[in-house]
């Protein structure tokens, strides 16, 4: 089933330029990395559109002229009920189209800021069938890297197991962002949360975990959140967080982003906030020497962003830790017949390359597979007995809005996530000026056919803002193997999202935008704040394009054994020798980008363990 016809119809390929012709091939590559369901859905939709064209004109899309295709698309877009579905179809098409268009215009070569520090890496295919260690860390993201560093520095023989591969900064520089994008994310970036509305929930999968593909924004956990974790949930580790946050900031070399490479997108956000008198400032980031490549989400090509594989993991390896890549942990091995209760004995690892399995025996297993994978791994291991395991998922639902300006903005030249607007943070809304390479952001350009093509051609005049809201934990991670997430947006959070759209529109108009693209399929454009208010009054959050980031809380730590699967020291309840040290332990939404919070949590948990080891 060829997607050529669909692509040609959606982006109005009239044959005047070359790049649209290459989009179908690019789209095929993108789809090949996505989960079966997403692939099948895409192809079924393409068939349905073809069938519609056949019924209307007697021929499929591929056999039509540009004009005829336009009339078919116009027929589709005239049906408002189809618009959200059409938007879903557009996401991978825009991703491919954006990349091809960018390649057509030519890219600037990135300059390495420094050589990658060395790591002790072994692919799973070269790992022996039987090996032992003092501790095994599952996952090499923010939590796993810190855990490995702490344990290795305490003198333990530590193995870090990472399902993804290792990618060097140099390798990022050699390839287009999209080519990297599909490799660095789980399911090619198409992880979805089922629910009303469905959410796109991309998570990284590589040495470095999601820190490899995040925007580098480093917020300290707000004090009111910490005091809630400690007082309401009895997670006493939060009391020590200040010290651990300092340590995490030092490790990542966190500093306020200088204005020189901020980019027009960030400067417009600052200008808008300045006009309104709102609190706004360049973000604190872990990217000293950032050159504004605007490719954070596909791996920093200059090495300026201090993801954990460039900062924490090298320290862990220097202390003796080893990293096994392409190694998916099938299950935690549990000796159920130990006196005193079941005890972890190691892990069964499946090689990504050939599907073969091997065991690593270790008395301590640190699970840091991320909030979506940790509950599934524990369930696969027969450790999913706690009724709250996998529940309590917070995701930071987010939406984005674009403003069209008279002058070119070229949002993709500068820092990807540059400015934070904290005016509404007290109300649970954090606005961040976020621009991505074309097509990679969560903002979906409106229209289809000729309209979409015009938007694509005029994309350099758009500035985009994103807002994420502090949500109630309304999600669940289901299943044992496939990532199955259910998330039903809380009514309060739906209101917050609409307020966030309004605030972003206000900011963009204040910055001088001629028009604001709302992301709402039926009313995609507004030209004034009053019009935006009217539109929002008549819409619900379900009509917004939502994505979600920062999943947390699925194996929450806390004092109550009934409510929290993990105890305040990070130990999984009901088994000895299993420690959880990733975003899953955060008992509620951290309300800010969580990298520092996750690292501080891992530091606190591991400090407790290494102290116990040293005193033994």
């Amino acid at each position, binding site marked *: 089933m060829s997607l050529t016809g669909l692509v040609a119809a959606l982006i109005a390929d009239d044959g005047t330029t070359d790049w649209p012709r290459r989009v179908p091939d690019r789209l095929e590559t993108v789809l090949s990395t996505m989960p079966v369901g997403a692939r099948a859905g895409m192809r079924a939709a393409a068939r349905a559109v073809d069938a519609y064209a056949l019924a209307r004109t007697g021929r499929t899309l591929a056999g039509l002229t540009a004009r005829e295709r336009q009339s078919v698309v116009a027929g589709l877009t005239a049906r408002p009920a189809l618009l959200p579905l059409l938007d879903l179809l557009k996401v991978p098409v825009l991703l491919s189209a954006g990349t091809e268009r960018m390649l057509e215009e030519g890219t600037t070569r990135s300059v390495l800021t420094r050589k990658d520090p060395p790591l002790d890496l072994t692919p799973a295919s070269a790992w*022996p*069938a*039987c*090996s*032992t260690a003092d501790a095994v860390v599952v996952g090499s993201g923010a939590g796993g890297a810190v855990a490995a560093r702490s344990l290795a520095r305490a003198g333990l023989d530590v193995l870090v197991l990472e399902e993804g591969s290792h990618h060097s900064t140099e390798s990022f520089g050699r390839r287009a962002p999209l080519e990297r994008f599909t490799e660095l994310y789980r399911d090619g970036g198409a992880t979805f949360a089922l629910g009303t509305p469905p959410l796109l929930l991309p998570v990284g999968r590589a040495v470095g975990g999601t820190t490899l593909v995040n925007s580098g924004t480093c917020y300290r956990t707000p004090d009111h959140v910490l005091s809630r974790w400690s007082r309401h949930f009895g997670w006493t580790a939060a009391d020590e967080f200040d010290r651990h946050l300092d340590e995490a900031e030092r490790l990542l070399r966190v500093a306020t982003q200088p204005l020189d490479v901020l980019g027009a997108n960030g400067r417009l956000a600052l200008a808008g906030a300045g006009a309104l008198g709102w609190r706004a400032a360049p973000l604190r980031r872990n990217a000293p020497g950032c050159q504004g490549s605007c490719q954070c989400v596909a791996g920093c090509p200059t090495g300026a962003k201090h993801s954990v594989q460039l900062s924490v993991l090298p320290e862990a390896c220097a202390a003796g830790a080893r990293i096994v890549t392409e190694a998916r942990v099938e299950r935690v*091995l549990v*000796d*159920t*017949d*130990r*006196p*005193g209760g079941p005890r972890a*004995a190691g892990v*069964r690892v499946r090689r990504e390359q050939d599907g073969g*399995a*091997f*065991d690593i*025996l270790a008395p301590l297993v640190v699970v840091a597979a991320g909030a979506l994978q940790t509950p599934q791994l524990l369930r696969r291991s027969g450790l999913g007995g706690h009724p709250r395991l996998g529940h309590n998922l917070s995701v930071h639902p987010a939406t984005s809005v674009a403003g069209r300006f008279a002058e070119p903005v070229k949002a993709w030249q500068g820092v990807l996530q540059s400015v934070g607007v904290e005016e509404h943070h007290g109300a649970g809304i954090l606005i961040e000026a976020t621009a991505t390479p074309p097509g990679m952001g969560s903002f979906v350009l409106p229209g289809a056919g000729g309209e979409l093509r015009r938007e694509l051609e005029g994309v350099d005049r758009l500035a985009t803002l994103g807002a994420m809201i502090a949500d109630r934990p309304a999600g669940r991670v289901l299943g044992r193997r496939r990532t199955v997430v259910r998330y039903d947006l809380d009514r309060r959070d739906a209101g917050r999202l609409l307020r966030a759209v309004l605030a972003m529109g206000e900011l963009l108009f204040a910055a001088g935008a001629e028009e604001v693209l709302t992301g709402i399929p039926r009313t995609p454009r507004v030209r004034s704040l009053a019009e935006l208010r009217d539109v929002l009054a008549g819409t619900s959050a379900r009509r917004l394009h939502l994505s979600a980031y920062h999943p947390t809380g699925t194996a929450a730590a806390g004092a109550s054994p009934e409510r929290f699967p993990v105890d305040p020291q990070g130990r999984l309840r009901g088994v000895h020798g299993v420690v959880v040290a990733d975003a899953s332990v955060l008992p509620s939404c951290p309300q800010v980008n969580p990298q520092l919070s996750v690292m501080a949590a891992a530091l606190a948990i591991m400090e407790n363990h290494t102290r116990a080891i040293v005193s033994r």
Partner: protein
Amino acid sequence: MSAATTSRVHQGRRSATRGTVFDETMLGTLRLDGEHHEHHEHHEHRDGPDGPDGPDGRDGRDRDRRDRRIRLDLTVSADRVMRPWGTTEARAAGRVRITGLADDPNAEGELEISPLARRRIRYRIAFTAGGRRLTLDGWKSVSPRRPVASMTVLPFTLYADGAPMGTGTLRFPLSTQLLPFLASFRFPRPHEPGAVLASRWRGEPGRTEVWYTTVTDPDTGSGLWLHHELTAPVDGSQPYAHGWAAVFPEDGPVRHARFGPVPWSGAEPGFDAGEVASRPGRLSGSADEGALHWDIAERPAGEPLFTFPRWSWNRPLLPATHMLPAARSRYDGTFTHDGRTLTLSGVPGASARIYGHGNARRWAWLHADLGDGDVLEVVAAVSTRPGLRRLPPMVFLRLRRQGRDWPRRPERGAVGWAGAGRFRADTALPTWRVTGRTALRRIRVEVTQPADRTLVLDYTDPDGRHATCRNSERADAHVLLERWWFGGWRTEAEWTLDGTAHAEVGTR
């Protein structure tokens, strides 16, 4: 739980439970780190990239060159009966052979056998190769999907001083090794020679209990007999301890002397009667006002041997029962008689125990050390009980050969199948005989006790009646063991003991 705790628990249960012993042989290959590279380069240099071998041929030959063959022959023993659904910690000892690297017959290590609970059978075997201590560590990961493969394939890593030096795979060859493996399973009782030396007597009247030791000194041809006896008379009068020591020199008449009787104290483990004592590991005493005195250390060198059924020792339902705390022992020390001192240095012999109501109506006894760890123990007896005394002698014959006891159960020789096929004894002197056969084996034992090498003694039973015993620690014996093989009997083993058999015949 730590390994130390595990072993404590096992030790606590040791006296109550049987153990497990089995043999396992595995074959496989080992690839040392770094060897791959070396050989590959060498190969390419020889054939060149355009050599006659295709990639497959080259790979195959390279593999042959790189891989070393490894063979593991292990005897695994655990302190309790293996529970397939639980976890059994076991010791392993045996031989490790690696082509061109190691051949260590004294490899030792441990096994964690947990096919269901932990789904893992782990081997950690340490051995020496070229002066270096190496450790083989690996485990079978038992999977219900592939039960046979996962129970027979053992991937392992080889460590030198804790650093990995190679990896390999061992396989249990089902076709050739399954039957020997299954047949090798034994569930032995824990071996504690000291425990059976404690007195069995619990205060009942009409009992006799004996600790006796017989020794042969191969250098001088002399025999020794130390007999320690506790008698609790039937009339309920005070129990007393007594006994005798006898020496059977090659060049002179038998010399013996009695000691006791003294009141039984029963305080010590073993036998204790004033100057004379038989305790675990030590025999000492004097008799005939110091004319005979001895101080001998005993080193058990074998598993216990129950001449009568084991149950009869644990539950005294038979008129009497006989057993050896260790089938063989070694003795060091001195035995002095009339100014002559016999110095013993690792000489063979055995101690035995008797407990019961008294002596038989008629009996014959043989202890023959057949060499190479093999032992033959025979007791043929006619009971004094009414009815039973009319029966022919019951023969309890135990041949321990290559670690196995034959017949498998002591009852087999004594009663056969309701009398049919029982072993026969003719206890006339000077030469008495025992014969017997099982399905595929038969034995013929001839014991000669020349009168000049025999000591005649008077025994007193708890009921006050007397028996006469003719004992020799320098008897001759001839043992012929045959096996049935396609229509005929073939000699399986034959032993001739010239003056080193220990024998006795008693009558009333």
